[in-house]
Protein backbone atom coordinates (compact mmCIF):
# COMPACT_ATOMS: atom_id res chain seq x y z
CA UNK A 1 0.00 0.00 0.00
CA UNK A 2 1.42 3.39 -1.02
CA UNK A 3 1.72 5.88 1.86
CA UNK A 4 -0.89 8.14 0.28
CA UNK A 5 -3.35 5.22 0.14
CA UNK A 6 -3.03 4.07 3.77
CA UNK A 7 -5.83 6.28 5.10
CA UNK A 8 -8.27 4.99 2.47
CA UNK A 9 -7.92 1.35 3.55
CA UNK A 10 -10.32 -0.32 5.99
CA UNK A 11 -8.92 -0.82 9.50
CA UNK A 12 -9.28 -4.59 9.11
CA UNK A 13 -6.96 -4.54 6.09
CA UNK A 14 -4.42 -2.27 7.81
CA UNK A 15 -4.53 -4.63 10.80
CA UNK A 16 -3.69 -7.58 8.54
CA UNK A 17 -0.77 -5.66 6.99
CA UNK A 18 0.51 -4.81 10.46
CA UNK A 19 0.14 -8.40 11.62
CA UNK A 20 2.13 -9.68 8.64
CA UNK A 21 4.65 -6.81 9.10
CA UNK A 22 4.06 -5.38 5.64
CA UNK A 23 3.21 -2.09 7.38
CA UNK A 24 4.29 -0.86 10.79
CA UNK A 25 2.13 1.01 13.32
CA UNK A 26 4.54 3.95 12.82
CA UNK A 27 3.74 4.01 9.07
CA UNK A 28 0.02 3.94 9.82
CA UNK A 29 -0.01 6.54 12.60
CA UNK A 30 2.20 8.90 10.55
CA UNK A 31 -0.14 8.57 7.54
CA UNK A 32 -3.13 9.53 9.67
CA UNK A 33 -1.31 12.42 11.38
CA UNK A 34 -0.35 13.72 7.91
CA UNK A 35 -3.97 13.44 6.83
CA UNK A 36 -5.10 15.33 9.95
CA UNK A 37 -2.54 18.08 9.24
CA UNK A 38 -3.74 18.31 5.66
CA UNK A 39 -7.51 18.39 6.09
CA UNK A 40 -8.51 19.02 9.71
CA UNK A 41 -7.85 22.78 9.53
CA UNK A 42 -10.84 22.79 7.15
CA UNK A 43 -12.98 20.08 8.76
CA UNK A 44 -12.50 20.89 12.46
CA UNK A 45 -13.11 17.35 13.72
CA UNK A 46 -10.37 17.28 16.38
CA UNK A 47 -10.37 19.21 19.65
CA UNK A 48 -7.04 17.68 20.75
CA UNK A 49 -4.42 15.85 18.67
CA UNK A 50 -2.19 13.55 20.72
CA UNK A 51 0.66 13.59 18.20
CA UNK A 52 3.73 12.89 20.36
CA UNK A 53 1.99 10.30 22.53
CA UNK A 54 0.62 8.55 19.43
CA UNK A 55 4.00 8.42 17.70
CA UNK A 56 5.65 7.14 20.89
CA UNK A 57 3.03 4.41 21.26
CA UNK A 58 3.33 3.53 17.56
CA UNK A 59 7.05 2.98 18.03
CA UNK A 60 6.38 0.81 21.10
CA UNK A 61 3.75 -1.18 19.17
CA UNK A 62 6.16 -1.66 16.27
CA UNK A 63 8.78 -3.06 18.66
CA UNK A 64 6.23 -5.22 20.45
CA UNK A 65 4.96 -6.77 17.21
CA UNK A 66 8.51 -7.18 15.94
CA UNK A 67 9.27 -9.14 19.13
CA UNK A 68 6.34 -11.47 18.42
CA UNK A 69 3.93 -9.97 20.95
CA UNK A 70 1.02 -9.26 18.59
CA UNK A 71 -2.09 -8.38 20.61
CA UNK A 72 -4.83 -8.75 18.01
CA UNK A 73 -6.58 -7.03 15.10
CA UNK A 74 -6.52 -3.51 16.59
CA UNK A 75 -2.84 -3.57 17.54
CA UNK A 76 -1.10 -0.51 16.12
CA UNK A 77 -4.23 1.09 14.66
CA UNK A 78 -5.18 4.68 15.53
CA UNK A 79 -8.49 5.51 17.18
CA UNK A 80 -10.17 8.64 18.47
CA UNK A 81 -13.13 9.01 20.83
CA UNK A 82 -15.67 11.79 21.04
CA UNK A 83 -14.42 14.19 23.72
CA UNK A 84 -17.06 12.93 26.15
CA UNK A 85 -14.89 9.91 27.09
CA UNK A 86 -12.40 10.34 29.91
CA UNK A 87 -8.79 9.69 28.91
CA UNK A 88 -6.23 9.60 31.71
CA UNK A 89 -3.76 12.48 31.41
CA UNK A 90 -5.35 13.77 28.19
CA UNK A 91 -7.64 16.79 28.23
CA UNK A 92 -11.34 15.85 28.06
CA UNK A 93 -13.49 18.89 27.31
CA UNK A 94 -17.02 17.50 26.78
CA UNK A 95 -17.13 20.14 24.07
CA UNK A 96 -17.59 22.74 26.81
CA UNK A 97 -15.63 25.72 28.06
CA UNK A 98 -16.76 24.70 31.57
CA UNK A 99 -14.63 21.56 31.46
CA UNK A 100 -12.14 22.84 28.86
CA UNK A 101 -9.13 22.19 31.10
CA UNK A 102 -10.22 18.91 32.69
CA UNK A 103 -7.46 16.33 32.65
CA UNK A 104 -8.98 13.11 34.01
CA UNK A 105 -7.05 11.00 36.47
CA UNK A 106 -8.85 7.89 35.21
CA UNK A 107 -9.64 6.16 31.94
CA UNK A 108 -13.09 5.32 30.55
CA UNK A 109 -13.63 1.58 30.24
CA UNK A 110 -14.08 1.87 26.46
CA UNK A 111 -10.74 3.64 25.89
CA UNK A 112 -9.02 1.39 28.46
CA UNK A 113 -10.17 -1.67 26.51
CA UNK A 114 -8.96 -0.17 23.23
CA UNK A 115 -5.60 0.71 24.79
CA UNK A 116 -5.29 -2.86 26.11
CA UNK A 117 -6.04 -4.15 22.60
CA UNK A 118 -3.04 -2.15 21.37
CA UNK A 119 -5.00 0.58 19.58
CA UNK A 120 -3.37 4.01 19.65
CA UNK A 121 -5.14 7.19 20.77
CA UNK A 122 -4.57 9.77 18.03
CA UNK A 123 -6.78 12.55 19.44
CA UNK A 124 -10.08 13.63 20.95
CA UNK A 125 -13.01 14.52 18.74
CA UNK A 126 -15.45 17.39 18.49
CA UNK A 127 -18.79 17.26 20.26
CA UNK A 128 -21.44 19.89 20.67
CA UNK A 129 -21.46 21.03 24.30
CA UNK A 130 -22.20 18.11 26.67
CA UNK A 131 -23.74 16.36 23.62
CA UNK A 132 -26.68 18.74 23.93
CA UNK A 133 -25.67 22.04 22.35
CA UNK A 134 -25.82 23.74 19.00
CA UNK A 135 -23.41 23.25 16.10
CA UNK A 136 -23.22 26.90 15.29
CA UNK A 137 -22.28 27.98 18.79
CA UNK A 138 -20.10 24.99 19.72
CA UNK A 139 -17.35 26.37 22.00
CA UNK A 140 -14.56 24.60 20.10
CA UNK A 141 -15.61 25.90 16.70
CA UNK A 142 -17.53 24.41 13.86
CA UNK A 143 -17.06 20.80 12.80
CA UNK A 144 -17.85 20.52 9.09
CA UNK A 145 -19.12 17.81 6.79
CA UNK A 146 -16.23 16.30 4.77
CA UNK A 147 -18.52 15.88 1.74
CA UNK A 148 -19.25 19.61 1.63
CA UNK A 149 -17.72 22.02 4.08
CA UNK A 150 -20.76 24.31 4.14
CA UNK A 151 -22.82 21.47 5.58
CA UNK A 152 -23.09 20.02 9.06
CA UNK A 153 -21.66 16.61 9.92
CA UNK A 154 -24.73 16.34 12.23
CA UNK A 155 -24.37 15.46 15.86
CA UNK A 156 -23.86 15.24 18.59
CA UNK A 157 -20.96 12.93 17.61
CA UNK A 158 -19.97 15.55 15.04
CA UNK A 159 -16.22 14.93 15.43
CA UNK A 160 -16.33 11.13 15.04
CA UNK A 161 -18.59 11.46 11.98
CA UNK A 162 -16.42 14.11 10.33
CA UNK A 163 -13.09 12.48 11.26
CA UNK A 164 -13.98 9.00 9.97
CA UNK A 165 -15.74 10.48 6.92
CA UNK A 166 -12.62 12.56 6.12
CA UNK A 167 -10.39 9.49 6.66
CA UNK A 168 -8.52 11.13 9.58
CA UNK A 169 -8.99 8.07 11.78
CA UNK A 170 -10.13 4.56 10.84
CA UNK A 171 -11.79 3.95 14.21
CA UNK A 172 -13.87 6.32 16.33
CA UNK A 173 -16.17 6.12 19.32
CA UNK A 174 -19.33 8.18 19.52
CA UNK A 175 -22.16 8.45 22.01
CA UNK A 176 -25.86 8.13 21.23
CA UNK A 177 -28.67 9.34 23.50
CA UNK A 178 -31.17 10.10 20.74
CA UNK A 179 -29.42 9.24 17.47
CA UNK A 180 -26.06 10.96 18.04
CA UNK A 181 -24.02 8.13 16.51
CA UNK A 182 -26.47 7.30 13.73
CA UNK A 183 -27.20 10.83 12.48
CA UNK A 184 -23.53 11.74 11.83
CA UNK A 185 -22.90 8.27 10.35
CA UNK A 186 -25.69 8.98 7.84
CA UNK A 187 -24.55 12.56 7.15
CA UNK A 188 -20.85 11.67 6.76
CA UNK A 189 -21.26 8.46 4.73
CA UNK A 190 -19.91 6.01 7.31
CA UNK A 191 -21.05 3.09 9.49
CA UNK A 192 -22.30 3.81 13.01
CA UNK A 193 -23.71 1.40 15.56
CA UNK A 194 -25.69 2.09 18.70
CA UNK A 195 -25.29 -1.11 20.70
CA UNK A 196 -27.87 -2.67 22.99
CA UNK A 197 -28.23 -0.80 26.30
CA UNK A 198 -25.84 -2.63 28.64
CA UNK A 199 -23.58 -4.05 25.92
CA UNK A 200 -20.90 -1.34 26.25
CA UNK A 201 -19.78 0.22 29.52
CA UNK A 202 -20.41 3.91 30.07
CA UNK A 203 -17.91 4.21 32.89
CA UNK A 204 -15.97 7.41 32.18
CA UNK A 205 -18.44 8.60 29.56
CA UNK A 206 -19.87 11.95 30.59
CA UNK A 207 -23.60 11.62 31.18
CA UNK A 208 -26.29 13.24 29.14
CA UNK A 209 -29.11 10.95 30.27
CA UNK A 210 -28.39 7.87 32.39
CA UNK A 211 -31.14 5.68 31.01
CA UNK A 212 -30.75 6.65 27.33
CA UNK A 213 -26.95 7.04 26.85
CA UNK A 214 -24.91 4.55 24.81
CA UNK A 215 -21.33 4.52 23.49
CA UNK A 216 -20.60 2.81 20.19
CA UNK A 217 -18.30 2.36 17.19
CA UNK A 218 -18.05 4.56 14.08
CA UNK A 219 -16.00 3.31 11.11
CA UNK A 220 -15.95 3.24 7.30
CA UNK A 221 -16.85 -0.45 6.98
CA UNK A 222 -19.14 -2.89 8.77
CA UNK A 223 -16.26 -5.33 9.30
CA UNK A 224 -14.27 -2.61 11.10
CA UNK A 225 -17.32 -1.77 13.18
CA UNK A 226 -17.62 -5.40 14.26
CA UNK A 227 -13.94 -5.47 15.27
CA UNK A 228 -14.33 -2.30 17.29
CA UNK A 229 -17.52 -3.42 19.06
CA UNK A 230 -15.82 -6.72 19.91
CA UNK A 231 -13.04 -4.88 21.73
CA UNK A 232 -15.26 -2.58 23.80
CA UNK A 233 -18.18 -4.90 24.70
CA UNK A 234 -18.90 -6.82 27.86
CA UNK A 235 -19.77 -6.50 31.53
CA UNK A 236 -17.96 -3.91 33.61
CA UNK A 237 -18.13 -3.88 37.41
CA UNK A 238 -17.73 -0.10 37.28
CA UNK A 239 -20.98 0.33 35.31
CA UNK A 240 -23.94 -1.42 36.97
CA UNK A 241 -26.03 -1.02 33.81
CA UNK A 242 -23.78 -3.33 31.79
CA UNK A 243 -25.04 -6.81 31.05
CA UNK A 244 -23.47 -10.18 31.75
CA UNK A 245 -24.88 -11.33 28.40
CA UNK A 246 -22.29 -13.32 26.42
CA UNK A 247 -20.43 -11.32 23.76
CA UNK A 248 -20.57 -13.33 20.51
CA UNK A 249 -17.93 -13.37 17.76
CA UNK A 250 -19.16 -10.41 15.70
CA UNK A 251 -16.70 -10.92 12.84
CA UNK A 252 -17.86 -14.54 12.63
CA UNK A 253 -21.36 -13.21 11.88
CA UNK A 254 -20.19 -11.65 8.59
CA UNK A 255 -21.17 -14.62 6.46
CA UNK A 256 -22.63 -12.65 3.54
CA UNK A 257 -25.64 -14.97 3.67
CA UNK A 258 -28.99 -13.26 4.19
CA UNK A 259 -31.16 -15.84 2.46
CA UNK A 260 -34.49 -16.03 4.26
CA UNK A 261 -33.64 -13.18 6.65
CA UNK A 262 -36.88 -11.33 7.41
CA UNK A 263 -36.50 -7.56 7.08
CA UNK A 264 -39.41 -5.59 8.54
CA UNK A 265 -40.32 -2.45 6.62
CA UNK A 266 -42.50 -0.06 8.62
CA UNK A 267 -45.69 0.99 6.90
CA UNK A 268 -46.39 3.76 9.42
CA UNK A 269 -44.49 6.85 10.62
CA UNK A 270 -40.81 6.08 9.84
CA UNK A 271 -40.88 7.49 6.28
CA UNK A 272 -43.00 10.54 7.24
CA UNK A 273 -41.30 13.80 6.25
CA UNK A 274 -38.34 11.98 4.68
CA UNK A 275 -37.45 13.61 1.33
CA UNK A 276 -38.26 11.58 -1.77
CA UNK A 277 -34.64 11.16 -2.86
CA UNK A 278 -33.62 9.84 0.57
CA UNK A 279 -36.62 7.52 0.87
CA UNK A 280 -35.91 6.23 -2.65
CA UNK A 281 -32.30 5.40 -1.72
CA UNK A 282 -33.54 3.40 1.27
CA UNK A 283 -36.16 1.55 -0.79
CA UNK A 284 -33.58 0.78 -3.50
CA UNK A 285 -31.29 -0.69 -0.84
CA UNK A 286 -34.17 -2.85 0.41
CA UNK A 287 -34.85 -4.05 -3.14
CA UNK A 288 -31.16 -5.01 -3.45
CA UNK A 289 -31.37 -6.98 -0.18
CA UNK A 290 -34.47 -8.76 -1.49
CA UNK A 291 -32.55 -9.74 -4.63
CA UNK A 292 -29.89 -11.18 -2.32
CA UNK A 293 -32.45 -13.46 -0.67
CA UNK A 294 -33.91 -11.43 2.19
CA UNK A 295 -37.67 -11.45 2.70
CA UNK A 296 -39.34 -8.07 3.10
CA UNK A 297 -42.21 -8.01 5.61
CA UNK A 298 -44.56 -5.11 6.32
CA UNK A 299 -44.59 -4.09 9.99
CA UNK A 300 -46.22 -1.33 12.01
CA UNK A 301 -44.87 0.21 15.19
CA UNK A 302 -47.83 1.40 17.24
CA UNK A 303 -47.50 4.85 18.83
CA UNK A 304 -44.17 5.47 17.07
CA UNK A 305 -44.93 9.20 16.86
CA UNK A 306 -44.94 9.41 20.67
CA UNK A 307 -41.47 7.95 21.17
CA UNK A 308 -39.69 11.23 20.37
CA UNK A 309 -41.73 13.46 22.69
CA UNK A 310 -41.56 10.92 25.55
CA UNK A 311 -37.80 10.52 25.11
CA UNK A 312 -37.33 14.30 25.21
CA UNK A 313 -38.99 14.44 28.64
CA UNK A 314 -36.63 11.75 29.96
CA UNK A 315 -33.49 13.09 28.24
CA UNK A 316 -33.89 16.69 29.34
CA UNK A 317 -35.09 15.84 32.87
CA UNK A 318 -32.11 13.56 33.44
CA UNK A 319 -29.71 16.06 31.84
CA UNK A 320 -31.04 18.87 34.05
CA UNK A 321 -30.58 16.65 37.10
CA UNK A 322 -27.02 15.70 36.08
CA UNK A 323 -26.05 19.35 35.53
CA UNK A 324 -28.04 20.71 38.50
CA UNK A 325 -25.05 21.90 40.56
CA UNK A 326 -23.17 23.25 37.56
CA UNK A 327 -26.27 25.13 36.43
CA UNK A 328 -26.72 26.75 39.84
CA UNK A 329 -23.08 27.78 40.08
CA UNK A 330 -22.07 28.64 36.51
CA UNK A 331 -25.20 29.01 34.41
CA UNK A 332 -23.60 31.79 32.37
CA UNK A 333 -20.73 29.53 31.31
CA UNK A 334 -23.01 27.16 29.41
CA UNK A 335 -23.49 27.65 25.69
CA UNK A 336 -26.85 29.53 25.46
CA UNK A 337 -28.86 26.71 23.88
CA UNK A 338 -27.68 24.15 26.46
CA UNK A 339 -28.47 26.51 29.33
CA UNK A 340 -31.89 27.28 27.91
CA UNK A 341 -32.75 23.59 27.41
CA UNK A 342 -31.63 22.65 30.92
CA UNK A 343 -33.50 25.53 32.54
CA UNK A 344 -36.66 24.86 30.58
CA UNK A 345 -36.53 21.20 31.65
CA UNK A 346 -37.37 22.27 35.19
CA UNK A 347 -40.92 22.84 33.94
CA UNK A 348 -41.43 19.10 33.51
CA UNK A 349 -43.07 17.64 36.60
CA UNK A 350 -42.24 14.37 38.35
CA UNK A 351 -45.55 13.07 36.99
CA UNK A 352 -44.47 13.91 33.43
CA UNK A 353 -41.19 12.06 33.89
CA UNK A 354 -42.85 8.98 35.37
CA UNK A 355 -45.47 9.00 32.63
CA UNK A 356 -42.68 9.02 30.01
CA UNK A 357 -40.91 6.14 31.78
CA UNK A 358 -44.15 4.15 31.85
CA UNK A 359 -44.63 4.83 28.15
CA UNK A 360 -41.22 3.30 27.69
CA UNK A 361 -42.63 -0.01 28.94
CA UNK A 362 -45.34 0.23 26.28
CA UNK A 363 -42.69 0.77 23.57
CA UNK A 364 -40.63 -2.18 24.87
CA UNK A 365 -43.71 -4.42 24.55
CA UNK A 366 -44.34 -3.06 21.07
CA UNK A 367 -40.79 -3.85 19.97
CA UNK A 368 -41.23 -7.45 21.18
CA UNK A 369 -44.33 -7.70 19.01
CA UNK A 370 -42.54 -6.27 15.94
CA UNK A 371 -39.66 -8.74 16.22
CA UNK A 372 -42.02 -11.68 16.26
CA UNK A 373 -42.62 -10.82 12.58
CA UNK A 374 -39.07 -10.01 11.46
CA UNK A 375 -35.37 -10.48 12.31
CA UNK A 376 -34.37 -6.88 11.64
CA UNK A 377 -36.39 -3.77 10.96
CA UNK A 378 -35.20 -1.26 8.35
CA UNK A 379 -35.86 2.48 8.44
CA UNK A 380 -34.55 5.68 6.91
CA UNK A 381 -32.17 7.64 9.16
CA UNK A 382 -32.92 11.29 8.43
CA UNK A 383 -32.89 13.81 5.61
CA UNK A 384 -29.47 14.72 4.18
CA UNK A 385 -27.13 16.84 6.32
CA UNK A 386 -28.38 20.39 6.89
CA UNK A 387 -26.46 23.49 5.80
CA UNK A 388 -24.38 25.13 8.52
CA UNK A 389 -25.91 28.45 9.38
CA UNK A 390 -26.84 30.40 12.50
CA UNK A 391 -29.98 29.07 14.16
CA UNK A 392 -31.72 32.40 13.68
CA UNK A 393 -31.20 32.21 9.93
CA UNK A 394 -32.60 28.71 9.63
CA UNK A 395 -35.98 29.05 8.07
CA UNK A 396 -38.63 28.08 10.54
CA UNK A 397 -36.32 25.81 12.54
CA UNK A 398 -37.71 26.94 15.87
CA UNK A 399 -41.30 27.29 14.76
CA UNK A 400 -41.64 24.10 12.74
CA UNK A 401 -44.60 22.10 14.01
CA UNK A 402 -43.95 18.47 14.98
CA UNK A 403 -46.33 17.44 12.18
CA UNK A 404 -44.03 18.93 9.51
CA UNK A 405 -40.79 17.58 11.01
CA UNK A 406 -39.25 14.43 9.60
CA UNK A 407 -39.93 11.25 11.56
CA UNK A 408 -37.77 10.68 14.64
CA UNK A 409 -36.32 7.34 13.56
CA UNK A 410 -33.74 7.19 16.37
CA UNK A 411 -35.36 7.20 19.76
CA UNK A 412 -36.99 3.80 19.33
CA UNK A 413 -33.52 2.41 20.01
CA UNK A 414 -32.73 4.64 22.98
CA UNK A 415 -36.12 4.22 24.62
CA UNK A 416 -36.24 0.42 24.31
CA UNK A 417 -32.50 -0.33 24.43
CA UNK A 418 -32.46 -2.31 21.15
CA UNK A 419 -29.40 -1.93 18.88
CA UNK A 420 -29.32 -0.15 15.53
CA UNK A 421 -26.77 0.21 12.75
CA UNK A 422 -26.49 2.78 9.96
CA UNK A 423 -24.70 1.93 6.71
CA UNK A 424 -24.29 4.15 3.61
CA UNK A 425 -26.84 3.43 0.87
CA UNK A 426 -26.42 6.28 -1.60
CA UNK A 427 -25.78 9.94 -2.31
CA UNK A 428 -28.14 12.73 -3.25
CA UNK A 429 -27.85 13.98 -6.83
CA UNK A 430 -26.83 17.42 -5.58
CA UNK A 431 -25.13 19.69 -5.88
CA UNK A 432 -23.93 19.19 -3.29
CA UNK A 433 -23.98 15.43 -3.42
CA UNK A 434 -24.41 14.28 0.19
CA UNK A 435 -24.44 10.79 1.72
CA UNK A 436 -27.58 8.87 2.65
CA UNK A 437 -27.69 5.95 5.07
CA UNK A 438 -30.10 3.15 5.85
CA UNK A 439 -30.80 2.05 9.43
CA UNK A 440 -31.48 -1.46 10.73
CA UNK A 441 -32.81 -2.37 14.17
CA UNK A 442 -32.70 -5.81 15.77
CA UNK A 443 -33.73 -7.51 19.00
CA UNK A 444 -31.74 -6.69 22.14
CA UNK A 445 -28.22 -8.20 22.11
CA UNK A 446 -28.52 -9.27 18.48
CA UNK A 447 -25.90 -6.92 17.01
CA UNK A 448 -24.52 -9.97 15.16
CA UNK A 449 -27.57 -10.02 12.86
CA UNK A 450 -27.24 -6.27 12.26
CA UNK A 451 -23.62 -6.79 11.22
CA UNK A 452 -24.62 -9.70 8.99
CA UNK A 453 -27.22 -7.77 7.00
CA UNK A 454 -25.21 -4.51 6.86
CA UNK A 455 -22.04 -6.32 5.77
CA UNK A 456 -23.90 -8.31 3.11
CA UNK A 457 -25.30 -5.04 1.74
CA UNK A 458 -21.91 -3.31 1.88
CA UNK A 459 -20.21 -6.23 0.12
CA UNK A 460 -22.71 -5.86 -2.74
CA UNK A 461 -22.34 -2.06 -3.07
CA UNK A 462 -19.60 0.53 -3.47
CA UNK A 463 -20.93 3.55 -1.53
CA UNK A 464 -18.36 3.17 1.24
CA UNK A 465 -15.53 3.30 -1.29
CA UNK A 466 -16.28 6.87 -2.41
CA UNK A 467 -13.81 9.46 -1.19
CA UNK A 468 -14.82 12.87 0.13
CA UNK A 469 -13.66 15.73 -2.14
CA UNK A 470 -11.14 17.15 0.33
CA UNK A 471 -7.77 18.53 -0.64
CA UNK A 472 -5.04 19.96 1.56
Amino acid at each position, binding site marked *: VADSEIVFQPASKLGQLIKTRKLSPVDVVRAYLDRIDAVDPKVGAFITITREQALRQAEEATKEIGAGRYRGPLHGLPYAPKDMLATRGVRTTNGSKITADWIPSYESTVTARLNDAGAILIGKLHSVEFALGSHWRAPFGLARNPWHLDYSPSGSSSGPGAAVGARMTPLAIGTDTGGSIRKPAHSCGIVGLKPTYGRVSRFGVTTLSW*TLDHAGPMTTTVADNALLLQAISGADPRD*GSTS*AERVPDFTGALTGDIKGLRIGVPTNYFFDGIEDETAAAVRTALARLKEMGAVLVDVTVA*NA*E*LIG*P*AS*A*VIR*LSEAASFHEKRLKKHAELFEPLVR*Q*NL*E*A*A*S*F*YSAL*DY*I*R*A*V*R*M*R*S*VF*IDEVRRVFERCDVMAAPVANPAPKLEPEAARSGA*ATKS*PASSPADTFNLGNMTGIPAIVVPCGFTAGPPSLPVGIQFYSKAFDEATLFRVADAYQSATEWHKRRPPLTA
Partner: protein
Amino acid sequence: LTGERLEEIRPSIEQQLARLEAVRGFDLDESVEPATVFLLKQSTHADLRRTGG
Protein backbone atom coordinates in the same frame (compact mmCIF):
# COMPACT_ATOMS: atom_id res chain seq x y z
CA LEU B 1 -35.05 31.45 37.66
CA THR B 2 -35.70 35.19 37.77
CA GLY B 3 -38.73 36.72 36.06
CA GLU B 4 -36.44 38.33 33.52
CA ARG B 5 -34.75 35.02 32.70
CA LEU B 6 -38.12 33.31 32.45
CA GLU B 7 -39.14 35.81 29.81
CA GLU B 8 -35.89 35.22 27.92
CA ILE B 9 -36.42 31.48 27.73
CA ARG B 10 -40.20 31.55 27.33
CA PRO B 11 -40.06 30.23 23.71
CA SER B 12 -37.96 27.27 24.82
CA ILE B 13 -40.30 26.53 27.74
CA GLU B 14 -43.31 26.73 25.44
CA GLN B 15 -41.63 24.40 22.93
CA GLN B 16 -40.90 21.84 25.63
CA LEU B 17 -44.38 22.06 27.07
CA ALA B 18 -45.84 21.61 23.58
CA ARG B 19 -44.06 18.26 23.37
CA LEU B 20 -45.80 17.29 26.60
CA GLU B 21 -49.24 17.57 25.06
CA ALA B 22 -48.75 14.28 23.21
CA VAL B 23 -47.18 12.59 26.24
CA ARG B 24 -49.91 13.75 28.62
CA GLY B 25 -52.59 12.78 26.13
CA PHE B 26 -51.50 9.15 25.80
CA ASP B 27 -53.95 6.68 27.33
CA LEU B 28 -51.85 4.64 29.76
CA ASP B 29 -53.36 1.55 31.34
CA GLU B 30 -52.86 1.54 35.13
CA SER B 31 -51.16 -1.84 34.88
CA VAL B 32 -48.20 -0.31 33.04
CA GLU B 33 -45.19 0.03 35.33
CA PRO B 34 -42.28 2.40 34.66
CA ALA B 35 -39.55 0.82 32.56
CA THR B 36 -37.09 1.50 35.38
CA VAL B 37 -39.08 -0.89 37.60
CA PHE B 38 -38.97 -3.45 34.81
CA LEU B 39 -35.19 -3.09 34.54
CA LEU B 40 -34.76 -3.30 38.31
CA LYS B 41 -36.78 -6.52 38.36
CA GLN B 42 -34.67 -7.92 35.55
CA SER B 43 -31.41 -7.13 37.29
CA THR B 44 -32.66 -8.43 40.65
CA HIS B 45 -33.80 -11.67 39.07
CA ALA B 46 -30.47 -12.00 37.31
CA ASP B 47 -28.68 -11.45 40.63
CA LEU B 48 -30.87 -14.07 42.29
CA ARG B 49 -30.06 -16.51 39.52
CA ARG B 50 -26.34 -15.88 39.97
CA THR B 51 -26.55 -16.45 43.71
CA GLY B 52 -28.79 -19.49 43.35
CA GLY B 53 -31.73 -17.72 45.06
